[in-house]
């Protein structure tokens, strides 16, 4: 099982070989509330670490999702176009946003592991 790493902006990234999957954390989906739309990029789009890779819209508002690492988008989760609520029901699984081919795996070193992220979220309350 591959490990998850998190950003301070509540994105997660999971690396399998050269490809990484990106989504938002259970905490993030809970803060957003009901997700009603996800604006996903076109495959082939190159994204820099910390820049917008997608936009998630809840009933209330639109929020940017930032890339946890640089790379090229190789796949997007098309299921979200008809079932955006998967982001709420399964944020770490079926609610993933994009898959990326990473440009520089060393960028992951600065991200939080599960324990660090859990402590970080706890500190937000």
């Amino acid at each position, binding site marked *: 099982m591959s490990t998850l790493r998190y950003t301070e902006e*509540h994105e997660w990234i999971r690396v399998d070989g050269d490809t990484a999957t990106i989504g938002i954390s259970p905490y993030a989906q809970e803060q957003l509330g009901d997700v009603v*739309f996800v604006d996903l990029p076109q495959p082939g789009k190159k994204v820099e670490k910390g820049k917008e890779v997608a936009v998630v*819209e*809840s*009933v*209330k508002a639109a*929020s*940017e999702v930032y890339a946890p690492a640089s790379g090229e988008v190789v796949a997007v989760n098309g299921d979200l*176009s008809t079932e955006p609520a998967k982001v709420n029901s399964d944020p770490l699984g079926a609610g993933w946003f994009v898959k990326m081919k990473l440009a520089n795996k060393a960028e992951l070193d600065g991200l939080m592991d599960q324990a660090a992220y859990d402590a970080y979220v706890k500190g937000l309350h």
Partner: protein
Amino acid sequence: MTSSAPSADLKTTPLHALHRALGAKMVPFAGYDMPVQYPAGILAEHLHTRAAVGLFDVSHMGQLRLSGANPARALETLVPADIVSLAPMRQRYTQFTDENGGILDDLMVTNAGDHLFLVVNADCKDADLAHLKAKLPAGVTMTPLPDQALLALQGPKAAAVLARFAPEAAAMTFMSAATLTLDGVACFVTRSGYTGEDGYEISIPAEKVEAFARRLLDQPEVKPIGLGARDSLRLEAGLCLYGHDIDTTTSPVEADLVWSIGKRRRAEGGFPGAARIQRELKEGTGRKRVGILPEGRAPVRDGTELIAGGRAIGKVTSGGFGPSLGGPVAMGYVETGMAKIGQSLEAMVRGKALPARVAALPFVKTNYYRG
């Protein structure tokens, strides 16, 4: 993703502790720490209100009383509605206008017999009180009612629920008022609300509101509803939100609120900005508030530019997701020539031109009880 800052220095309503106990997510709104949603979430709360009954805490809104020498005549110097002809225990929607014909606030006015009862927006209430104080004639007394809480009970089963406490509630018609004894407490009740559904607004002494709110929540049809669903419900109902759809830059005619201006008032004038409003009634306006139905699934939010034929023709003033429609809904202002139902236009969302069309308001059929 970014997190919101914690709230500080905010006012609270008498139901604050109950909101916390019910697990509400609290947000700052109009200077108050208010429930935006409860654990059920905005979608479920919205749909519950359309199907059964939602209980809203609207105690942040301003309640006040005008009494003394002919308060209806005095109020007509500040609003374009016909208040003098308002029958006892009847309610009417109107706006405070300014000298330019812009809207200072929108409000509900009830003829309570020996006085007028007003409900104004939370964000505007201090300014409204100052405005009234400065403009009302000496013989009219304005009394703010800060010790009164306000509940909105909304939904198709609201009448059945309230009739358990006071059977006469069921016979009240839309926009009528009554003093009802609810759970042993004298309450001033109007059959109105701001969701497009049948329902009531209940003015109740602050110290009695929590006990009564709990009694209402004990009824199987009733669930607590936050400001998130209140906003999506009023948007689907095509109702204006002050500060978004109407403000000092919009006139009641542009805002398509002509129905709220009495026939006599249109002819006679005598309210702030009457010259502009009477001219607009005769000659029309350059822009108009309309419903906008985006064709895709992407919500089109407040501030979004609307274009047609390659040029800007208007702007969205309220927009989001309509849970009852299962898709995005919006409203905003467009050039009058583009205001016809069915008119195609495009909404510029994150640099993309998304197809949309002008649609009739309300998006969801209203369910008022007219007797």
